[in-house]
């Protein structure tokens, strides 16, 4: 008798989409996918993959909506794999998908807003963003 596979396969959907998009992006990026395969089982490896993929995109200047969708699918794969492992209720997948895809309209909004905003020193923006990020993380940690 074959042992029943209890693991849910939902993480494979964004994984396959990501693989396809990576093929069109840069063949070198495919070398990162084995790490993502490990990330399906261990979240820490998923986090490592996100860092490597982000760095790769920064380095190769693959940004824009295409690069953002790649990041979205990468995060979705890692997070869906976590829900699969936990056998979470199906309704938990919906807010996850919506949350990560909200990055897309936000990006378009920022793109739309950028010409209207006064030009700022990029380092100042970076510093403000770092401080904001730090405060956000602290507030989350403290509850």
């Amino acid at each position, binding site marked *: 008798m074959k042992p029943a596979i209890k693991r849910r396969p939902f993480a494979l959907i964004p994984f396959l989409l990501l693989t396809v998009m990576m093929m069109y992006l840069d063949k070198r990026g495919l070398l990162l996918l084995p790490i993502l395969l490990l990330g399906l089982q261990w*979240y*820490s490896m*998923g*986090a*490592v993959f*996100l*860092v490597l993929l*982000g*760095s790769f*995109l*920064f*380095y190769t*200047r693959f*940004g824009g909506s295409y*690069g*953002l969708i790649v*990041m*979205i699918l990468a*995060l*979705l794969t890692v*997070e869906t794999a*976590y*829900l699969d492992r*936990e056998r*979470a*209720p199906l309704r*938990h997948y919906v*807010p*996850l998908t*919506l*949350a*990560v*895809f*909200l*990055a897309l309209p*936000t*990006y378009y909004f*920022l793109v739309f807003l950028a010409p209207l905003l006064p030009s700022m020193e*990029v380092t100042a*923006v*970076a510093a403000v*963003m*770092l401080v904001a*990020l730090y405060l*956000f*993380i602290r*507030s*989350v*940690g*403290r*509850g």
Partner: protein
Amino acid sequence: MVMTEFKITEKAEYLFMALWVLVLMAFFLLRWEMVYLVLPVLWLLFVAVFFFKPTLDVEISRKLPHDRVLEGEIIDVELRLKANERIPSLRIRDMIPEGLEVVEGSNSRVISLSKGEERVLRYRVLVKRGVHPFESILLSYEDPFGLFYVDRVENIYQELVGVPRIQDVPTPYSTRGTKITVGPLPSPRVGEGVEFHAIREYQPGDPLKIINWKATARTGRIMANEYESERKVDVVFIVDASYTGFIVFDDLVRAAASLMLNALNDGTSFGLLLAEEVPLWVRVDYGKRHFFKCIDFLSTAKPDVNNMIAYQVEHLIRSRFPPRAQLLYFSPLLTEESRNALKTMSEFGYNVVVVSPNPYSAIDPKSREEELALKLLSLERRVMLQKMASYGLIVDWDVKKPLKAAIAEVVNI
């Protein structure tokens, strides 16, 4: 009192780390304009924090069937929950005391509750002797993405007392004891179960019915019968709680509780000395209420560091023990102190019955060497008991056999 604590999970720590490294990489690789690639991570954190952070608004209570249960019994513990908000994933852990063993169900569950939903969770525990304090229930919520969790400790204190199991045992001593002579003073005891003691001269105030007319005719003076009331002996239970005998301590307490019930049924009055590090003395009294009070103390007894039992006994003999009482001494007689205590009791002229559970009978040897060691120790114990036999009647109890048989063997019932 309720304590609530928000914490981030290990998973969230990885995600935060990834987020920071990505931002720094954008910096170091001079691609700051591409930092929008972290937007998915930020949105995920934002949604988790602002839409799935609960207040853990749950009402919870615990129900125990009784607060006193016989040791060895299995009881149902009920946890009743009512959610005042939707809680997708709630972990509940009832912090059960060490002395209890879960035999059915689990004291830890993960459930999902919708708003207003009520739920009853049950598990069964095996109760051992002693006081078992249920202190708190731990509630833990993890958001659907597993990024943070909320722990709440609900302090619901309840005590469950495991009462020692009581056996039917014969009385190993004579219940006829202290006589109270009905003297010249009027006594309420006159006429209740009295026995003739002597003839004396009639004293004013004596009831007329005690006048002995034959003796009056013979002596020419008004003579009266003197009675002594037939009173039961006072029994004092002395429990040696020194930790050296921990292996048979439960048996020791069971024996004391069984003989206490026997004393209650015999109508004798009894007191209790629980010789822990700080001795506990319950004065001699009658009745069921007194019995249950003593049983409560026996239930809570635990082996303690006590090298003072001889001193405690000597002090209480001088100040508290009723004269000519029957002493029941429960001790494995493992320490010099416990043996000295027995000698003291005997030296003060008390009748002592020692119920001594054999600690070596409670051990199953696992090797030939252990078997040999147990034999040697048992021989040593037998010699010691022979020496101590002059101080009291010793019931050497093999704890694998009923106490009834051990007592019957000694008192030849």
